[in-house]
């Protein structure tokens, strides 16, 4: 009995210690490619609004399945347009809340300095061990990479060297660990504050692939949440846009 009492006191104190000083909590599911900018944006939003943002990062496909099965998210930032569109058709979002929060840019990257100049010469020469790209079936960055390869007429020539990541984070890992000489990654992964962080890269002109539009939606669960609506609006603010641009994304 005494043990039971002390246990309940401990449990009660946990409850009391949990942060309740915030006005409201927002749960956001965020595509992994947008991890770093979203952390910055959420921090700014928390400071300005006093609300608390709880971020979950992962693949859009998994979030889609989770949301359809009752996951407690208010906001969903997808890596593409298909999943928000499918959710809209299924009536799982607040009507008219869907918009493009970022347009991704593609880069060919090597972790080795001076391995590529800012052009397609290395890719065309075939002088590399392997080429990492995101699986085009799953990731919009993979679709864009395929378009670039096709445009250069090197799809068949390079096919035997392809290594596919399940998503753009994994593709980045293959290149950054040196397992592949080259890889198509998101510009946002190798860029910080307007500069390429390491290695060498070709920032691919945006006319060589279709725009990688990433859509955000307000989910049904957020119907009565001012904080969730506030976060979606904040994504369109100048502060948020500046953060988004500094990681190499464009906006509309």
């Amino acid at each position, binding site marked *: 009995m005494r043990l039971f009492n002390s246990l309940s006191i401990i449990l009660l104190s946990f409850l009391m210690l949990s942060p309740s000083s915030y006005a409201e909590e927002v749960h956001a599911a965020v595509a992994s490619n947008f991890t770093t900018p979203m952390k910055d944006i959420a921090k700014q939003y928390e400071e300005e609004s006093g609300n608390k943002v709880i971020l979950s990062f992962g*693949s859009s*496909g*998994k979030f*889609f*399945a989770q949301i359809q099965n009752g996951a407690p998210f208010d906001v969903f930032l997808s890596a593409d347009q*298909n*999943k928000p569109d*499918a959710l809209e058709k299924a009536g799982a979002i607040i009507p008219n809340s869907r918009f493009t929060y970022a347009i991704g840019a593609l880069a060919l990257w090597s972790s080795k300095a001076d391995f590529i100049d800012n052009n397609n010469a290395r890719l065309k020469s075939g002088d590399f061990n*392997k080429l*990492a790209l995101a*699986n085009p*079936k*799953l990731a919009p960055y993979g679709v864009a990479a395929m378009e670039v390869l096709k445009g250069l007429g090197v799809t068949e020539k390079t096919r035997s060297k*392809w*290594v*596919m*990541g*399940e998503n753009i984070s*994994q593709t980045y*890992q*293959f290149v950054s*660990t*040196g*397992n592949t000489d080259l890889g198509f990654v998101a510009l946002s992964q190798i860029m910080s504050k307007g500069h390429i962080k390491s290695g060498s890269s070709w920032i691919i002109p945006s006319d060589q692939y279709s725009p990688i539009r990433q859509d955000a939606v307000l989910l049904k669960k957020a119907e009565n949440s001012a904080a969730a609506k506030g976060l979606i609006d904040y994504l369109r603010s100048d502060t948020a846009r500046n953060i988004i641009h500094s990681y190499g994304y464009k906006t509309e």
Partner: protein
Amino acid sequence: MLSASDLEAIWLTFKVATTVTVILLLIGTPIAWWLARTRSRLKGPISAIVALPLVLPPTVLGFYLLIAMGPNGFIGQLTQELGIGTLPFTFWGLIVASVFYSLPFVVQPIQNAIEAIGERPLEVAATLRAGSWDRFFTVVLPLAKPGFITAAILGFTHTVGEFGVVLMIGGNIPGQTRVVSVQIYDHVEALEYDQAHKLAAIMIIFSFVVLLSLYSFQRKNTLWGAK
């Protein structure tokens, strides 16, 4: 009903799991034998190392294998010295990673079975002038057979169900590293739930049949042993 790439993934998974099980029995048996019979101080540390893959989440294990087997890692440098290039994104890279990942599942049942035999039967065999190899094949192997069968079942099924490690070091190459678990994941991520359900159902039925036949075999076997 199944697409060509689904069938390819099933065949590949079967090939990987079979190869890994054979290799694990070959290297797991001496390790288990040594662990079961040694009085060395190294027994503790070696047992702990064998059990380590159980602790690390598979994707984490896979990530470090990717680094270790990559061009700058110690395994990668060794394989490059030997002139076989680097292992990630190849069939044999998958085999090496799976062997490491499934090792405890094979070593521990064999070790337990050998420990259960004890010293006595071996001493008796020795007085009958059986050499050490003879003792192993005519005494240990038959007596520890259930342990070996359990080890093979666990090694095989654990490799079939492997996902995180393959995801990290595989690179999703058809016929090389795109196993069933990855193929199902791809279907789910692409919102092709129908194909995912079909493939998952086949995987479950197949595994159930394999396990059922092996366990019934094992049961019969121990009954014969009891006669």
